[in-house]
């Protein structure tokens, strides 16, 4: 080992506290980077492998009923490689282990597994025997939730027919990686499940012999998607087709894509914050080190070491810290990533998730870290390399202290002289002070950013479920029903109030923007399901116009007063122009609302109903469930409390896990910045402090001075951090917004307070730790040293 390297090792050792603090900050950034990137690619490869092996479709459409022969016409569309027709049916399930009825979706599968699209991946058990009736393969997650094994059975209402179903196998499908009931956000495997049944049997049960009501296409690479969708729609329209869509509108696919998008932003934003803070810290620590070693540098150069060798010496020091941090971060990131993969395995139904950290991700992490650190120390290293040896023999001129502008305004007139000293020293290096303040504020911001999602969820839950959607249950009918359904619903056991609605699939157009949504028709009096405007006030729905959710209006680029074209995708498929009367909240996603009578006019059919929101007396739940299971009219019943509960459970668990990491990461930033700032302040000012001590100041007085300096930094940084945190949160909310979902930006005061407390305490502890050094101040040595 060369002597310079030996010096390097010892310098690293004597400053290990500071360097470890920096390495930890780097490790946080790299961990976030590696975690997000490795999880992202694992998810990507897992998904695309699964899609390929199970031949996931490119196009999907539902229709009412079309003869099997229609498949040939679909196959003729240029770009279509393969057509898969099938029968799909929403069903009510009577599970032996649950009083409440569950709902499900039965999908037809061929007699024998072959080259079909969206093929079922059989996990356990066997394929369906076409000669036996009632055999189904159920989704593995639903089976798990109900402890179903091959051989178990349960009852269902399929198209009004009560049938017994027998589980013969457990499976999963690329269409239901995220197995969620349409319209809901989180899967509830107890109350919704997908299952597969022999094609012929399901067709018979649904009165769809030699017909289909659902299709999926596989396209050639590079096929013109928009054109294919247009042609598919033309062909299926006469058969009650309600519009075809590509993978982007396929719920499961989109949820995974959204998750990937989030991982992507996680790989960039936090990494950038942490590495920027680390670069800043490396810069100040190295600049300080180089200025204290000016004379050593001069001597080394006087003896013939050149600038490159000296620069390399200091660059290596930074490089080792960066590398150490990066390696630690890679290790931690890989572990967290593995944990994420386990969590994803719970939410997403994949045969298996193969988690792997790729070598290029490690290389990229190292490269990014070294790049950021390089930027941070470039100036200091160049300074060391170019320090003229003769120049360096004379002590560095101290930064010129000035009467600060604050003082000029008389702000500090009454301040003690000793406080002026601290104040001026902060102002003597304004850039460094400003960046230090920014660094600490980043810790606060990271904490706000990491914890505000809880507020957002709480707010959404409270406003959605306590104000906007106050029903206990929602029932949906198997088919649009006539007005006799009103009495039938009202007479269900325990029902105290029922608000009926009609929902129709429509396409809304404005200019070249268009969206497929459900147009909801409601009655006049809406107490349990008031449609609320942006100020959370009930809106008066109109017969002659629509209210749009804010996201939908934005997608269509319309404002109240504009006209939208509404194309009904069912029944007589009429078109009409309707005026946008106002905007409503987004809690239920993209949606449009009007008075039921208006919707009936539009549909040009008699009064029909699709379902009802109910408020129910708890006592009668058992009887209600029983009746619903026996009522063919009702296809599904959803319990709001069940949704809320499962939402709370899953979110609470994940949020808590995230919070632990975020608090740890934010504390590391705070510690890194405060500890290093304090160490540097202590080293730069040790002479001043020693002088004061010699002149008779007590230890307490000197440390009060020292802590005052850090306190000033904190006083500036904490509010700034809240502001930046708010900005980050706003950016995140904007980034999270998807086609169908938008979140309000809500941050409760408690979240700010939490961030302030955590960072305040972490900072205080870090500076108190450094303060001990002041007590050990060797007065004589400090004053004698020629610094």
């Amino acid at each position, binding site marked *: 080992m*060369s002597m310079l390297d*030996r010096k390097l090792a010892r310098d690293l050792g004597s400053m290990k506290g500071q360097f470890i603090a920096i390495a930890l900050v780097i490790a946080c950034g790299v961990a976030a980077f590696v975690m997000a990137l490795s999880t992202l690619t694992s998810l990507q490869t897992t998904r695309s492998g699964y899609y390929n092996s199970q031949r996931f479709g490119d196009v999907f459409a539902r229709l009412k009923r079309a003869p099997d022969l229609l498949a040939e016409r679909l196959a003729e569309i240029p770009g279509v490689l393969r057509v898969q027709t099938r029968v799909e049916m929403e069903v009510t399930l009577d599970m032996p282990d649950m009083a409440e009825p569950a709902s499900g979706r039965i999908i037809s599968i061929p007699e024998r597994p072959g080259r079909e699209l969206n093929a079922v991946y059989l996990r356990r058990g066997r394929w369906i025997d076409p000669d036996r009736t009632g055999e189904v393969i159920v989704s593995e997650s639903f089976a798990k939730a109900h402890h179903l094994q091959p051989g178990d059975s349960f009852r269902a209402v399929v198209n009004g027919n009560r049938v017994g179903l027998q589980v013969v196998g457990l499976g999963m499908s690329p269409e239901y990686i995220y197995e969620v009931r349409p319209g809901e956000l989180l899967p509830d495997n107890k109350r919704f499940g997908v299952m597969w049944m022999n094609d012929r049997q399901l067709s018979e049960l649904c009165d769809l012999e030699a017909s289909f009501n659902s299709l999926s296409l596989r396209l050639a690479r590079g096929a013109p998607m928009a054109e294919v969708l247009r042609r598919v729609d033309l062909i299926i329209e006469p058969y009650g087709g309600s519009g075809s869509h590509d993978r982007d509108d396929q719920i499961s696919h989109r949820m995974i894509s959204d998750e990937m998008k989030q991982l992507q932003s996680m790989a960039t934003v936090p990494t950038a914050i942490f590495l920027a803070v680390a670069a800043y810290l490396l810069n100040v620590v190295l600049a300080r080190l180089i200025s204290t070693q000016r004379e050593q540098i001069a*001597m*080394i150069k006087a003896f013939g070491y050149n600038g490159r060798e000296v620069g390399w010496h200091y660059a290596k020091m930074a490089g080792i810290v960066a590398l150490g941090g990066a390696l630690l971060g890679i290790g931690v990131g890989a572990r967290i990533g593995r944990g994420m993969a386990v969590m994803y395995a719970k939410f997403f139904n994949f045969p298996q998730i193969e988690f792997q950290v790729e070598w290029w991700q490690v290389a990229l992490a190292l490269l990014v870290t070294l790049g950021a650190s390089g930027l941070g120390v470039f100036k200091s290293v160049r300074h060391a390399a170019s320090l003229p*040896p003769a120049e360096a023999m004379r002590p560095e001129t101290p930064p010129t202290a000035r009467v600060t502008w604050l003082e000029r305004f008389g702000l500090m007139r009454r301040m003690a002289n000793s406080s002026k000293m601290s104040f001026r020293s902060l102002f003597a290096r304004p850039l460094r002070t400003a960046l230090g303040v920014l660094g600490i504020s980043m810790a606060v911001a990271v904490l706000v950013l990491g914890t505000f999602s809880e507020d957002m969820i709480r707010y959404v839950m409270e406003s959605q479920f306590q104000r906007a959607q106050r029903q206990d249950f929602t029932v949906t009918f198997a088919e649009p029903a006539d007005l006799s359904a009103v009495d039938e619903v009202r007479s269900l056991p325990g029902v105290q109030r029922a608000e009926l609605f009609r929902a129709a699939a429509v396409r809304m157009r404005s200019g070249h923007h268009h969206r497929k949504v459900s147009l909801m028709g409601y009655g006049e009096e809406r107490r349990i399901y008031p449609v609320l405007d942006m100020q959370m006030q009930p809106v008066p729905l109109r017969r002659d116009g629509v209210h749009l959710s804010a996201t939908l209006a934005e997608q269509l680029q319309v404002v109240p007063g504009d006209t939208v074209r509404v194309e009904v995708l069912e029944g007589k498929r009429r078109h009409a122009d309707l005026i946008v009367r106002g905007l409503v909240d987004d809690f239920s996603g993209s949606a449009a609302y009007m008075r039921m009578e208006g919707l009936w006019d539009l549909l040009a059919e008699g009064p029909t109903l699709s379902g009802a929101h109910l408020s129910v007396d708890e006592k009668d739940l058992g009887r209600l469930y029983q009746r619903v299971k026996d009522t063919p009219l009702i296809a599904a019943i959803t319990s709001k409390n069940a949704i809320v509960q499962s939402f709370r459970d899953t979110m609470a668990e994940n949020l808590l896990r995230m919070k632990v990491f975020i608090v740890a990461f934010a504390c590391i930033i705070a510690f890194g910045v405060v500890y290093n700032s304090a160490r540097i302040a202590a080293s730069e000012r040790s002479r001043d402090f020693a002088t004061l001590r010699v002149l008779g100041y007590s230890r307490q007085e000197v440390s009060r001075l020292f802590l005052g300096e850090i306190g000033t930094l904190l006083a500036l940084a904490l509010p700034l951090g809240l502001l930046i945190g708010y900005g980050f949160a706003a950016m995140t909310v904007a980034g999270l917004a998807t086609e169908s979902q938008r979140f309000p930006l809500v941050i409760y005061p408690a979240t700010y307070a939490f961030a302030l407390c955590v960072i305040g305490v972490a900072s205080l502890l870090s500076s108190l730790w450094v303060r001990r050094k002041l007590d050990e101040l060797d007065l004589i040595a400090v004053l004698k040293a020629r610094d």
Partner: protein
Amino acid sequence: MPDTSDPTAVFRAERVCKVYPMGDTEVHALRDVDLELRAGEFVVLLGPSGSGKSTLLNILGGLDVPTSGTVRYRDHDLTAYDDAELTRYRREHVGFVFQFYNLVPSLTARENVALITEIAANPMAPDDALGLVGMGQRTAHFPSHLSGGEQQRVAIARAIAKQPDVLLCDEPTGALDVGTGILVLEAIERVNRELGTTTAVITHNAAIAGMADRVFHLRDGRIIEVVSNAAKLPAADLKW
């Protein structure tokens, strides 16, 4: 004045000026300095503070370049050198001793010497160099555990361990008491005598002039007098 054509000259400076710009004014640190140092010679530079001694020494050592004039080291024209060439010149030929020792505090005495011998073409063993200045017993000590005089002797060992052609010392005893100063001077004297290293020592202390072959007196950036000593005093006999 010495014969300008002396073939044994190691350094030959002609009409050397050094001007430092200081805001609106200029500081003339050296004005038209001519000088020659011969191989193996021991010279002392004397003069009041600010007279240009350090500036001259730094220029001879390749740490600095003159504003005008030429400086030759044997057959090298130092004034024509760029930074890289000056660095190589220092690396190959010059040893420095500074007033404040400038040891690396994180390296032991031996390591401080080895730091320089590592990049030298023909160094002596660090332990031998330390032995030469009477520090053979303290090789494993860190600078913070050595007295000022001991540190300065380590610095001398460091300067001579590479077996330089010239040894330039800027106030090597400036921070030391008499006894310690003499120990340090003895070390320098011994190196000059036993290794034949051309040696220049800056001092404020006229008493030290007794050790020299020649003494250059500086004032206001000029050499105002050169005194040759007929007989050199050994360092041990100096008194101040």
